[in-house]
């Protein structure tokens, strides 16, 4: 990365922003699928039942906390490596 000049840094910044949007999309839809797979298993009803909604709440919460924690550890390790 250090090898990029100012102009290249700028271009790369744009690439970065586009990627970041994609990362969010991927993270979000991954979260949806994972919590759906674990929490929703009753197909005798058409709409989410209370038990499923409560599970989704806990699942999203836990997933985000876990992702945040792992993200911090990962960044620390990457920083040590530089």
């Amino acid at each position, binding site marked *: 990365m250090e090898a990029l000049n100012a102009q290249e840094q700028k271009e790369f910044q744009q690439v970065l922003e586009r990627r970041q*949007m994609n990362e969010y999309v991927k993270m*979000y839809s*991954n979260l949806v*699928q994972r919590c759906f797979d674990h929490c929703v298993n009753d*197909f005798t*009803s058409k709409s989410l039942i209370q038990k499923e909604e409560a599970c*989704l709440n806990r699942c999203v919460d836990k997933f985000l906390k876990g992702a945040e924690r792992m*993200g911090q550890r990962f960044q620390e390790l990457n920083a040590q490596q530089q």
Partner: protein
Amino acid sequence: MVFGFGAPGPSSAQKIAAAEAELELVSDTFSRLSSSCAKKCIPKDYREADLNKGESVCLDRCVNKFFETTMKVSEIMQNKANGQQQSGGGFGGFSM
């Protein structure tokens, strides 16, 4: 727009990128939904080529519940983003 994309972006390139991200999300959602619902509703032995009544109803309900789940999750994340003023980290929210 369903998933909360399409915020006011000035340049053409940004507007197209936003529309593309929205599209990406819809298509990614559909592909995850199909994979999850096929797993939950269609037995793997493939004894008949047709969807039977039970499988069809299960698929319909599963699509509906998956869709509701996307809304629910989006709502939860919105609440989080508004409510507690994220402590940062980049993986703790979905604000863009």
